[in-house]
């Protein structure tokens, strides 16, 4: 009895956000997706520390090397995680270069090691460091996801690429949010000819085929720009194309909430127009905007990947998931070095996770229905 009463009380005193959280928590898939994304973003933020190599490090001796196996037992004896040394050999049939394990060399995996030359980075852009989460002693090599055609560690590149591929969408989304909110509220709140003009602009933007438009805009990016500037341009391009959806949502919410009784009640009680907008109208659809933004992130991730894949975005040695996939666009790469497709798994997982999370958020968005 007392237990139920306590629970009811909690419900009665629950604000919109805690009601949403209760509902969201019950969506198992969305919760799992949220955790996965949290892990991904944490890894991406700590990327320079977790990745054993920097973006510009390579080793011509280990080109197209497959993922390194991690062993625990040597000749039946447990000695913790270690890797064997690698030796170059030729495949007797295809005469291709292959790497075989040399079981006489044992390199235990060490944690919190100083990286090789070229692995230097700055913590949060401030404190210089060359500390890496794991590594092996001089002479040994560890490539968790293998290497690419220049001998760069794919695992490091996936993590460092995530910094671009997972943050461009966030920045792009914020730009989209600003554009969409302004245009949507103008159209919805003022209405009349302003609404008509904005609606027509939205229709024009939406009726362009996306890829050619991206290509045209990217062609306008000068080739001499630094990666950071290209990054900014890319987010700008992506948000210029993706704001109409949000603007439409905001507009329709403004129009529908304008007719709500509680808005009229606020007016009758003497609330000035600005207060009505900020205290009653915007809070009534904040949750929808969050959902809309979450759902728009997969599109932006795909957008970045597509741009880079087409060679219109970042270029090596700057790394993003799109760049990594672009490097695999030859049939022989896929045939002989299948590990090069590992970045695709991460694109896939991230997009899927955002979709599941958005799904859960959408179900929770209006706790009063």
């Amino acid at each position, binding site marked *: 009895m007392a237990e139920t009463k306590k629970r009811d009380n909690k*419900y*009665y*005193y*629950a*604000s*919109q956000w805690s*009601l949403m959280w209760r509902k969201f928590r019950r969506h198992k898939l969305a919760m799992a997706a949220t955790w996965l994304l949290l892990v991904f973003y944490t890894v991406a933020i700590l990327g320079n520390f977790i990745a054993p190599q920097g973006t510009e490090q390579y080793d011509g001796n280990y080109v197209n090397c497959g993922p390194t196996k991690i062993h625990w037992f040597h000749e039946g004896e447990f000695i913790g995680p270690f890797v064997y040394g690698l030796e170059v050999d030729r495949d007797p049939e295809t005469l291709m270069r292959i790497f075989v394990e040399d079981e006489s060399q044992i390199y235990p995996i060490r944690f919190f090691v100083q990286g090789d030359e070229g692995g230097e980075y700055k913590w949060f852009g401030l404190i210089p460091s060359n500390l890496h989460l794991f590594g092996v002693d001089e002479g040994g090599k560890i490539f968790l996801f293998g290497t690419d055609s220049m001998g760069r560690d794919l695992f490091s590149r996936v993590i460092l690429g995530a910094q671009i591929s997972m943050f461009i969408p966030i920045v792009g989304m914020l730009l989209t949010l600003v554009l969409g909110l302004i245009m949507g509220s103008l159209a919805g709140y003022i209405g009349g000819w302003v609404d008509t003009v904005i609606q027509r602009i939205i229709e024009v933007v939406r009726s362009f085929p996306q890829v050619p438009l991206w290509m045209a805009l990217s062609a306008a990016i000068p080739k001499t720009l630094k990666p950071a500037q290209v990054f900014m341009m890319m987010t700008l391009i992506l948000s210029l194309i993706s704001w109409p959806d949000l603007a439409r949502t905001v507009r329709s919410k403004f129009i529908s909430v304008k007719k*709500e*009784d*509680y808005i*009229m*009640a*606020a*007016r*009758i*009680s*003497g*609330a*000035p127009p600005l*207060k009505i907008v900020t205290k*009653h109208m915007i*809070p*009534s659809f904040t949750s929808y905007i969050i959902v809309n933004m979450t759902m728009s992130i997969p599109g932006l991730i795909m957008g970045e990947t597509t741009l880079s894949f087409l060679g219109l975005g970042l270029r090596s040695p700057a790394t993003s998931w799109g760049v990594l996939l672009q490097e695999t666009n030859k049939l022989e790469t896929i045939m002989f070095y299948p590990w090069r497709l590992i970045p695709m798994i991460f694109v896939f997982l991230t997009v899927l996770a955002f979709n599941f999370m958005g799904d859960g958020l959408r179900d929770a968005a209006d*706790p*009063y229905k």
Partner: protein
Amino acid sequence: MDNKVILEIKNLSKVYESKGIRVKALTDVTLTVNQGETVGIVGESGCGKTTLGRCVARGIEATSGQVLFHTEEDGVIDFLKATKAQMKKYRRDIQMIFQDPYASLDPRMTVFDIISEPLRYNTKMNKRQIEQAADRIAEQVGLNKAYLRRYPHAFSGGQRQRIGIARSLILQPKVIVCDEAVSALDVSIQAQIINLLEDLQKEYNLTYLFISHALSVVKHISDRVLVMYLGRVVEFGETDALFENPMHPYTKALLSAVPQPDPDVTMKRVVLQGEVPSPAAPPSGCHFHPRCAYKTERCTQEAPPLEEHDGRFVACWNCGVCSAKEKGAE
């Protein structure tokens, strides 16, 4: 009742216009309201009673006409064209209770915030005074003040309507527009809320514009009743007299639809032919003529003015004809 006029509504009209279609929701509605009385406003759906209430409280802006508000300090002011300073001073005097207790409370605010919101805009009270005022008003409308920190979703329809009443009452207004204030509630809850409204009226000498389609409720609570049809006033008079002897043929038909609790009373129902015409394309002349059994040539051409007959205001060219005919038939 001292018959001191508090509100004069003159020629109030509201036209909705969209894509070339003009809908006249209100046409030249005129009435006076005395301080402390309850004026019931009845009519079928779409006749403009809600629009009338909302225009008076300025929830929506009327197209033309005046709402003259008699104040003690500044004499008579037109509430619809009040200056900013006047509005700041008198906005609080005309408040409104809404029909739908679910839609009229912002679900994202606590009950305390909802009730005290008007105080924040209209007074300079500090936090403690606001809290005290909210507690007091909550007690008065029968809300447990321990519940003020809860959100509206924790309350039933009747309790929510009490919250709505508390919100409209906290500014101590002179006039309250009750827009179908009890229609959305269960019958037993309706009675509670009506009693509450009556008690509050006695305590604060409130004036009610009581909009409802429930005739028995209107008969119970109102001093005078205004009958509307398609945006126009057809009859306005003392409740008892009007229910006893309706003069307008529409009022007759409307009142004959009230169910009688006594099974022995046989009722003569006046059944109207046809449907309510669309307000976008109202009939010529008297709006009621296509459905009226007593119409004459004149009714189809000219709209009848609202004129006084034996202390009653009726808008009918053939006023009294229908009653006379009925008597003749008996």
